[in-house]
């Protein structure tokens, strides 16, 4: 889905790059601080993305005229 601007996959890839860059012996201190901040922010974002609330299964119900009613709309869940 295109609405997913942020994905754990991409975040992990970026974190790998950040750590690799941090390991360079001749990295400047301010660069390393910026990378570190960026990494920490990414981690925070990952944690937020994980949305650690347990979910109950939502059973969609067939209403009249074959329409589908549901308790929640999966398409509207923009917190992801």
């Amino acid at each position, binding site marked *: 889905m295109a609405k997913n601007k942020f994905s754990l996959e991409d975040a992990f890839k970026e974190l790998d790059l950040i*750590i690799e860059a941090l390991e360079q012996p001749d990295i400047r201190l301010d660069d*390393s601080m910026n990378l570190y901040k960026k990494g920490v922010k990414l*981690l925070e974002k990952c*944690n937020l993305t994980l949305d650690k609330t347990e979910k109950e299964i939502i059973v969609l119900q067939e209403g009249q005229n074959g329409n589908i009613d549901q308790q929640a709309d*999966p398409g509207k869940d923009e917190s992801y």
Partner: protein
Amino acid sequence: MNHIFTVSQLNSYIHRIFESDYALRMIHIKGEISNCKYHSSGHIYFTLKDARSSLKCVMFLQNRAGGLDFRLENGQLVIVAGHVSVFERDGAYQLYAKTISLAGAGLLYQKFEQLKKELAGLGYFDQTRKKPLPSYPRTIGIVTAVTGAAIEDIKSVAARRNPYVQLYLYPAKVQGEGAASTIAEGIRFFDHYGVDVIIIGRGGGSMEDLWAFNERIVADAIYDAHTPVISGTGHEIDMTIADYCADLRAPTPSAACELAIPDVFSILQQLDRYQDALEQRIFYKTNQVRSQLDTYRKLLLANHPGTRLERQRTQLILYRDRLNTLIDNQMTRTAHRLEFYGEKLTALSPSMRLRGGYVFAQKKDETPISSVNQIEDKEIFTLIFKDGRADVESRKIIKEEDR
């Protein structure tokens, strides 16, 4: 007396009765194959049976090409068309098969193979068009029966691996009349609404039970979907058309769930590892910079004017101490020398010489007299002894050269 017939006569008679019966000339019989034997002559001998009875059958080689397009196996449910007649030699009647086709599950199997071939030809199963699964899906649409083992398995797998993933269930009929269309509808619904992954499936069953997953409309719905579809139907071995079409095939619905849902605890662990790695790196870096800073601080301090002054002062004190030492040594040495000379002088002093009978002569004006030529006759001069003096008068002067 009654007429006596031979066995051949009787068998021939019965044969004629069979042959004259219109119904037996072309008859369709449904039954299960058993004792199937492909004879080296090319004829096939088998027995058709149902729950109560059995019937001997034969298919001659010349009928095989036009009447049989699959291999007969024991247990197959088939419909055999042919005529029933008597084999006089054995006094047995049997069915002479003209065509044999699969019935029931056998028929389904044939339909399955046909559709599979057709869809394969259309590219429905191409690996190249399989969509990759998202690594971290957050919403999963499930198309299966609202009751049954499948959904319970899925729920427990999801709860164990990742209770944070939102599951949606589209209750579908997974068996019987209209099942295929509700499954296809469910796939289209989720594809339209937008979930990360769609799982379709049901627990195991016979081929008839699973048949809905072998229907064209389900295949089309999977083929048309933009959302990745995982199919988990039935058993480990039996693949359905839906399994072939799906982007990923799992042996069972719960296995499909395992494939779809990443283990959240491994993600959390991964996050922890990243955090540790970041902290370790930055800690190392800051430490490195700090120690570098410390080195510079020491260097700078070493070159501070105050430090320099201090060092020079220390140097000065050193020099002063050295000088003092040198001077002291010099003084001591001089004192020693003085003493030495004093002693020497003392040893050489005139009074010291006056021991042992020596005297010292001097004139009245205290000029020392070292030669006889300095004195004249009757001159009064002084003799100095070690312990006093005496004025004396020369009475006669005798010189060495006079002697």
